Every structure is written in structure tokens, then in C-alpha cells.
């Protein structure tokens, strides 16, 4: 949801090394049916938290669409799934 410059500042501040994508108009969030209407500050639409692991052929191999936004996938859990599925990462995308 945030514009690239906000993502850039946040990424630097937190020391993240993966890519942050900006979906300011929630187009991809809608395409993945993850819109959480009116749940953001000032009742704006935001994304519900979700994680997808997509293989090099473009197929979804694992997904986590949480039923509570306080509970997300944990890094060690996702790394194990990479290993279990025998996948190697091209990069890590973040859309929000």
C-alpha cells in the first residue's frame, strides 16, 4: 500500500535485504483476492496478511492465508518449506 519511498526508508531502517513492492492502488492485492476493506488507517482498504511460495514455473507450491492477522508465517517455517519442496530462491518479493 505504501509508496516506494516509504518502503525504501522502512527497508533501510529495518535492514531488510529483500525487495519491497508497492501496490498503492491494491491492484495485485485485489487480483489475489486479499483485500481487507476499510481496515487501514482512516478506513482505507489494505491487504490481509498472506504468503505464497511460487516455483520457477509460476505455480503456487505453498500458501499461508492466515485467519488471524496477529499470526503470520515464521521465517524458519518458510525456509523449511523451501527445503522440503527442493526449491531454490530467485529472490524474495514483498507486496503491500
Amino acid at each position: 500500500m505504501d509508496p516506494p519511498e516509504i518502503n525504501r526508508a522502512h527497508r533501510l531502517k529495518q535492514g531488510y535485504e529483500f525487495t519491497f513492492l508497492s501496490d498503492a492502488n491494491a491492484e495485485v492485492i485485489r487480483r489475489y483476492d486479499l483485500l481487507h476493506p476499510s481496515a487501514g488507517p482512516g478506513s482505507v482498504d489494505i491487504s490481509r496478511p498472506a504468503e505464497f511460495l511460487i516455483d520457477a514455473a509460476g505455480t503456487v507450491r505453498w500458501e499461508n492465508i492466515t485467519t488471524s492477522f496477529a499470526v503470520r508465517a515464521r521465517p524458519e517455517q518458510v525456509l523449511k518449506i523451501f527445503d522440503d519442496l527442493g526449491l531454490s530462491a530467485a529472490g524474495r518479493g514483498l507486496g503491500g
Partner: protein
Amino acid sequence: MWSGFLLVLAAPITYGTVFVRFPSTRDLPWATFLILGVGLSLAAVGVGRAYGEPQVYRGKMAGPILMGLGAAVAAFFCYQFFVFTRQLPPSNGAPRVGQAAPDFTLPDQEGSPVTLSSLLAGGGQGDRGGAVLLIFYRGYW
């Protein structure tokens, strides 16, 4: 009684500032529930004492009021955690395991466009492509 009430007040505050940083105390806030439980117990003991020795504890008014407020704080936290965080839309149209992930192009943190299919395929310069982890988050920092 007062210490119990202050502990009850501290529970949601420490959840928001400290325990939310660690998955084990965020996903199921056992540490917060522990603090709430100890706080409410202390407050209940305090109320019992106040009723037992009202002349020492200067009347019975403060006890029930603090106990009620403490219970309200605990109930509010439980509501927030168990009900509010689960009020999410259905997402029936989200791509399922085995389906193709819808392609898209979005600007990265430098404003440069990134296309999912190009990431998967690899973009040259030693970039061999591979799997991509796509994380959607609530945003607005």
C-alpha cells in the same frame, strides 16, 4: 489490589510493545494471559481483604471498582486478540496450491518495475531465476 490492577493494565501494554516482537508470545500471548491472571488474582485477594477489614482499607468502594475495571481490561484484550484479529474477509478467489500465480508488475523500493514472471525466469547477468516468496502485509508504517 492496586498492584493487581496495575499488572492488569500492564498486560496489554507489554503485549503491544514487547511480546508482539516475538512469534512465540505473539501468536498465542501466553505471557500476557499469565500477567492478566496474576493481576486479576492479586486484585481479587485485595478485594477480599478490603471486605474483611474495611476499617483498614478505607471502605469497600475502590475494590470493586478496580476489580471491575481490571476485568474489563482483560476482557477487552481477549476480545481484541480472539475476535478482532480474526475479522478477515473470505478470500475465496485467492490462488490455490497447484494453480498458476497471477502475473503482475509493481514498482520496487527504488521505483523500478518488477515483474513476477521475469523474477521466476531470471533476468540475465548471472540471475538464474527460481522460486519466489510473495508476502502480502497490511502496510502503512
